[in-house]
């Protein structure tokens, strides 16, 4: 049986894993450093993470250079799927990250600006390489809008429609991040996760809002997510990946136990 995946997410800034408490605070200096990305990746590898996601939250030319080094080092020691996002704007950027050892690239604002990038990437590297990450915010009782640029710019696009379009252009996976839930530790946005998961034929990874083990279980069960992404609960040592999987297994959710 296909296991539900548990994916630690590492936001990398100046070669440090950091964690802001709320969307868009990176540039205001409101970040907490939580460690060296390679050391953390090795630890999550040991704990039995199913994949890892690295976001370059500086996304400057210098930031990308350090990210390439990080991915090269992680890929030669961790034999699991690795995804890289942040600042990937061209097929050439994708190629650089895949060449460094990433298995998938995650695009967000650049896909919104140039939807053709999804298609171009899928054609060149295969759909399985192309993850489209969506930052969605609830703007009405039954409407979620897509925001770009780290959750700062409204796009006018409705989240389910954009997810469907991204998949039709060749996205092999959707990462759905709730702007409302992110950093709150109050649980994932189950509704929009379920709406999108029921409408697209590719896996959906839920992101934003994990605070308790219960949250991860409910977004897999009621939110119908195929995988859960979390950062703070792992970085600050509240739970290990193993703790999460034990809990999910006890709930009858299929997971890969070491």
């Amino acid at each position, binding site marked *: 049986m296909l296991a539900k995946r548990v994916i630690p997410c590492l936001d990398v800034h100046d070669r440090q894993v950091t964690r802001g408490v709320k969307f868009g605070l990176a540039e205001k200096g409101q970040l907490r450093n939580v460690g060296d990305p390679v050391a953390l990746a090795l630890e999550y*590898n040991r704990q039995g993470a199913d994949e890892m996601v690295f976001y370059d939250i500086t996304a400057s030319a210098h930031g990308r250079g350090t990210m390439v080094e990080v991915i090269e080092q992680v*890929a030669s020691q961790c*034999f699991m799927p690795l995804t890289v996002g942040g600042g990937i704007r061209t097929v050439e950027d994708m190629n650089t990250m895949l060449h460094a050892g990433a298995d998938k690239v995650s695009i967000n604002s650049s896909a919104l600006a140039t939807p053709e990038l999804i298609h171009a990437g899928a054609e060149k*590297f*295969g*759909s*399985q390489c192309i993850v489209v990450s969506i930052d969605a915010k609830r703007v009405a009782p039954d409407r979620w809008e897509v925001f770009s640029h780290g959750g700062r710019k409204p796009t006018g696009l409705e989240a389910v429609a954009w997810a469907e379009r991204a998949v039709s252009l060749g996205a092999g996976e959707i990462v759905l991040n709730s702007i409302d839930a992110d950093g709150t530790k109050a649980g994932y946005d189950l509704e929009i996760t379920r709406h999108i998961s029921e409408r697209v034929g*590719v896996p959906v990874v839920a992101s934003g809002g994990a605070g308790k083990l219960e949250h991860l279980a409910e977004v897999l069960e009621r939110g119908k997510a195929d995988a859960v992404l979390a950062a703070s609960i792992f970085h600050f040592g509240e739970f290990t990946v193993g703790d999460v999987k034990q809990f999910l297994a006890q709930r009858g959710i299929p997971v890969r136990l070491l």
Partner: protein
Amino acid sequence: MIALIDYGAGNLRSVHKALVHVGANVQLVTRPAELSAAAAVVLPGVGAFDDCLNALQRQELFSACREFIRTGRPFLGICVGYQALFERSEEFNSKAPGLGVFQGRVVRFSGTGGLKVPQIGWNQLEILQPDCPLFRGISDGSFVYFVHSYYPLPSDPAIVAARTDYGEAFASAAWHGNVFATQFHPEKSQAVGLRLLRNFVDHVGSGPTD
């Protein structure tokens, strides 16, 4: 020396790193002449069937791979490198003939019951041939990493070394003589995958030298 076929496959570097990690003497190979000195061949792959087969044809490695397998030396195909061993694919618009080492065709998941296609993630092996050298020390039910929309339907059930269930039970590993192949990615399957690759490398080392 184990020859790792370099035809531009997306997982080439991951497979290379994993083989080096388990102690193999690996060499990237782009031309048929380089196969003569190889003790074994690994054919990686990810993406489209035709891209793989057309690239092998362009580099004159298509016949060279078939010839290499005929000599009886160990051969390992991974993902599309596994599918390539069959006769043909039902992938959309596929025209390229497969290597035809195994009889059968490559088909798509039906996606029935709301299952997502591609299958992405960790799924379990039901090991049908525990004496297959690849599975030494690997227990039945182990999880390995898959990324694929298509899988081979072997005509001969005797070559199926392991099965996996994703809506339908499919042949997730095949074995006949010295030809080994996996639909999953051992290079991305953590300890289980590294063990499988080490088993292959040990098998190469223990076999008769040519």
